[in-house]
């Protein structure tokens, strides 16, 4: 099987999960399959889906970004404050600038200060959420600007602008990842850092760039969230880091790096969105919602992993770990690079 075919099959697994959930829901609720409801799912998914784009880049690079939610919150508040005082364009520039700056700092902490991304971005999350509250004194910042609100509330050709933004984001960054030299560098760096370096790839630059992209997309997600609510909440984005990581993993990207497709992430984000939507439609007890969500995530990833194992058992290649199949690509695993240095 060619690599392309296989990767499609991998994505298809997430798609199957989406279809499965979709079919169950369309039987259970007559509303589910209406176009308005599906657009609502798209709308509700858009922010997480945008964050998950950057997170996919980061995870393919074998890193992780726990600060995306806090970046979204911080840049939202900055955007709203600048919008209030200086108007639309400066506000958008400021928001994106803040997102890029946070990404840059994350990237430098990881590549230059040699910190594990898990802890660097965790600390960054703490710092940013404090700064956001400090900046606004804990109060939301109301948005009066109609143009800005349009980013979240307008429709184009019957489809909400956030859905367009999401689709555009996936198109642009999907092509960037799959079809450009930079995208290949991302895969290569995540797959084998040392080899990438020795092949002449500027791996640190690649990583920093990916963090900056992630920051920019978090800012973009912040615009949408802020515009939808007509207000920038200082607590906006809380918890979205884990949600975005879940979307990436459900989408079939491996936390070990080097593998994954952006389309899978979109499907992963939609799976999560559909579950939320369905549980609301069916009025599932709020207590049980998180149980159901957890179970569906387990199921999705379990299927993903074990179809893998099954397939490779019948295929020409050796199974990942013939006799001890414990977490072939669990996070975190020691990298091949430290291994390399053990042999003089």
């Amino acid at each position, binding site marked *: 099987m060619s690599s392309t075919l296989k990767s499609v099959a991998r994505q298809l697994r997430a798609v199957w999960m989406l279809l499965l959930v979709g079919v169950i829901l369309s039987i259970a609720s007559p*509303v589910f399959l209406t176009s308005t409801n599906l657009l609502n799912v798209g709308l509700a998914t858009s922010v997480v889906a945008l964050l998950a784009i950057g997170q996919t880049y980061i995870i393919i690079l074998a890193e992780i970004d726990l600060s995306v939610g806090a970046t979204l919150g911080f840049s939202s508040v900055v955007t709203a404050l600048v919008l209030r005082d200086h108007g639309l364009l400066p506000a958008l520039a400021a928001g994106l600038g803040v997102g890029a700056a946070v990404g840059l700092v994350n990237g430098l902490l990881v590549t230059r200060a040699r910190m594990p991304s898990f802890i660097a971005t965790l600390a960054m999350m703490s710092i940013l959420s404090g700064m956001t509250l400090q900046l606004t004194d*804990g109060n939301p910042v109301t948005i009066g600007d109609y143009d800005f609100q349009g980013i979240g509330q307008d429709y184009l050709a019957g489809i909400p602008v956030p859905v367009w933004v999401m689709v555009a984001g996936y198109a642009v960054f999907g092509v960037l990842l799959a079809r450009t030299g930079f995208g290949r560098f991302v895969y290569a760096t995540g797959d084998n850092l040392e080899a990438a370096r020795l092949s002449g790839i500027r791996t640190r630059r690649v990583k920093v760039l990916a963090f900056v992209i992630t920051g920019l997309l978090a800012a973009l997600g912040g615009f949408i969230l802020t515009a939808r609510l007509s207000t920038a909440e200082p607590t906006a984005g809380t918890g979205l880091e884990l949600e975005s990581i879940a979307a990436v993993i459900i989408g079939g990207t491996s936390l070990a790096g080097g593998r994954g497709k952006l389309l899978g992430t979109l499907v992963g984000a939609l799976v999560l969105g559909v579950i939320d939507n369905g549980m609301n439609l069916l009025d599932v007890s709020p207590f049980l*919602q998180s149980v159901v969500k957890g179970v569906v995530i387990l199921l999705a990833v379990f299927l993903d992993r074990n179809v893998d194992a099954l397939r490779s058992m019948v295929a020409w290649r050796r199974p990942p770990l013939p006799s001890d199949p414990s977490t072939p690509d669990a996070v975190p695993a020691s990298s091949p690079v430290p291994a390399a240095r053990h042999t003089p």
Partner: protein
Amino acid sequence: SRGSQNAASGASPGKASGNKSATLIMSTLNNPFFVSVGNGARSQAAKSGVKLSVQNANNSDSTALNLATTAISKQVGALIIDPVSSTSATASVKQANNANIPVMAFDRKPDSGTLSSFIGYDAIQAGRNAADALAKSLGEKGTIVEIQGLLGTNVAQDRSKGFEEEIATYPKIKTVAKQAADFDRAKALDVMTNILQAHPSIDGVYAANDEMAMGALAALKSRSLAGKVRLVGNDGIADALAAVQDGTMYATNAESPYALGQKVVSLTGNVLGGKKVAAEETLQGKLVTKSNVKAYARYLVGIGDSADVPAALR
């Protein structure tokens, strides 16, 4: 007795030492309501000559307890707590009791322990008030939706309890959906959007706080249902007052957080000054509808809380 070996025991109560310091432990500060309580408290502290330190428990029972323990070992003059939950606050109160440090509580009443005073809005009553207001506005019949707060937290549980008990007394009102949105505006927007898919023709919505009410309102607006569906919230934050004023929201059970903060600190000042204070003071929320929103805004400005008054009403 437990905790008596805490070395802070034997510390003299504030009134004897002339210690005019107090630590205020907020259950959270990530929410405009509580931020406003803090602001009210600070403004009053300046007036009453209390040296006030405001701390944030981040909705964590154990953080709240740790903060209380730290404050007690600092030997503050008085401890003011805004319990994360009424059960878990007991431990803090008892520790302060053992250390002879006067404790005030507000918003939620600790289940046991000795308080110098308790000042609070009654969360169960708040839920009841909202239920009554919503029922009345609907002519006591119709279909409604309840949006709950962060489950497992005291306010969410109590407001929901009050609301459900009271709404049950209106037999012609039917709750078609009950979902949680964690007191979060963005979550409420998505939850309400989804609910409107399943139930496009509801008559009313109760959101357990105004943040969620604003989220729900955004969802209603996108379906052009704002003003048509009766929306009742809780707290009386500025955005909600503005929405009530422009008719997109029916009512909010306003519990001026600023006034609460002021009240608490002024009572603390009395306690520290050795004056006698009432053991319990329950503040009643004020149902703010379009008819009295201007008056309520004037009241807020009057107490020095113009920050919580929307521009349109200033």
